[in-house]
């Protein structure tokens, strides 16, 4: 499935993307970025605590070679 793309095609495609993006709804006011950074780091700390509560046999290997 290979199609040649001309500059005109690309401009039209990007124009479409930009056009849609231009009318995008703005995100509601969500506070200061540093608040979110602190909250994200705090969340990771809570996840670490939750994982630490799980007892694992020493023989448990990570699901690295992940096959369902």
């Amino acid at each position, binding site marked *: 499935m290979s199609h040649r793309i001309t500059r005109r095609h690309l401009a039209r495609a990007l124009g479409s993307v930009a056009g849609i993006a231009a009318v*995008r709804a703005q995100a509601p006011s969500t506070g200061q970025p540093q608040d979110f950074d602190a909250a994200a780091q705090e969340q990771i700390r809570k996840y670490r605590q939750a994982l630490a509560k799980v007892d694992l046999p020493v023989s448990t290997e*990570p*699901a690295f070679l992940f096959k369902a």
Partner: protein
Amino acid sequence: MAAEINDDIFFATIGELDSRLKAREFSDVDLVRAFAQRLEQLGPRYNALALPLTEVAIRRAKEVDSDLKRERYRGPLQGIPFGAKDLLSYANHPTTWGARPYAAQVFDYTATALQKLDKTGAVLIGKLAMVELAGGGGYRFPSASMFGPGLNPWDRTRWSGGSSSGSASAVAAGLVPFALGSETSESILTPAAFCGVTGLRPTYGLVSRYGAMALSWTMDKIGPLCHSAEDCGLVLAVIAGGDHADPGSAHKGFYYAPQYARPVKTLRIGYAPADFAEWAQPAARPAFEQALAVIRETGAQLVETRLPDLPYSALTATIIQAEGASVFEPLIASGRVQELADAKQIAGLKAGLEISANDYLKAMRIRSQLQHKIRLLFVDVDVLISPSRFGPAPKVTEPLDKNPSGQTPKDLGLSALIPAGNLAGLPALSLPCGFTDGLPLGIQLVGPAFSEGVLLTVAKEFQTRTDWHRKRPKV
């Protein structure tokens, strides 16, 4: 005289469209042009359209017509228009991943799933909008996309769900007969449930991820959103299969053969009463209970069960955030991560770089245990059933981290089935099962790895006994 392309056709299943195409009721050019124009015209109404491909699609439809004229049949998807989440690359056309920093990104190769659909004659008519970077950093508002919030065709003040937002809303509004989406955790099932369409998340490794944006190498899956379970089976049969270009490929195929399926009445289906009586929002409970009653009527044996107690949110978030932060490290390092739309998403991606190797490995070791425990659970049951989401789509202005009831039931039940199923790489189907306040609800079926055939059999039986999947929003 060619048949008029009307609403009956826009909301038809793949099987119905295939019959009418082969009967020459209309040409493929007519069909593709009608869908492509509708997608271009109505897609922006739902912020569903990322990139129209009308001209390319009509050229491809002419080739399909030529094949049909010569009776060169390539299968039930031949000539069927479809859309694809803008996370799948399509050679020499923009692939934005829903994110402003990648608005001008163009690859010179096409995703394997799209190549396979093209080979069978399905016609790509547009790329569909999505949550930026499939929401890997965790996002707070539906507006976390360069295309704006996905709007629900049943009520445009409501979210279409994410991250496969445009894929679900385009199918629900009859803008495409089917679409491809992707799920790392919940990104097919949630939009399918919120928009009232049928969505299939395949077993990890069954569908090639080649050409798809990587968010989490160990959890990403590509799957279809359709008008019916049968359509999902037809699409999966085409896109499944081994691919040496995908290191996670299971090198297995899928053959949709419902005629050889095990009868539903011989199946044991696990459910948790707490899901229906405590976790489900009160207004949604009658629909979910009715769905369970329909399953009971099939003769299947319903068995009470529950998930093992594990920190599902912590596991999923640690693995996705760690892998996602590694994937997007160049974006974070460049500072262009700040161009993303959602502040929580930006912070989540950045914080993901701080997850230690020890935390990631601990999560992956617990994941091994989870997989073992889930295998044991499937000794007693063949399929699990639970509400896909416990209520309808939220308003687009509502923060997504708000708990609607403010309470968390004590009994876990199967309430964490979406993260558990994704961590274990299991297949799932979300089926429309009713409405509350005019908004669709979905019920999910989950089975052991590579049990898609069983799930589709149960789903097909459910959809012969109900007509929720036939309901259409006013577009």
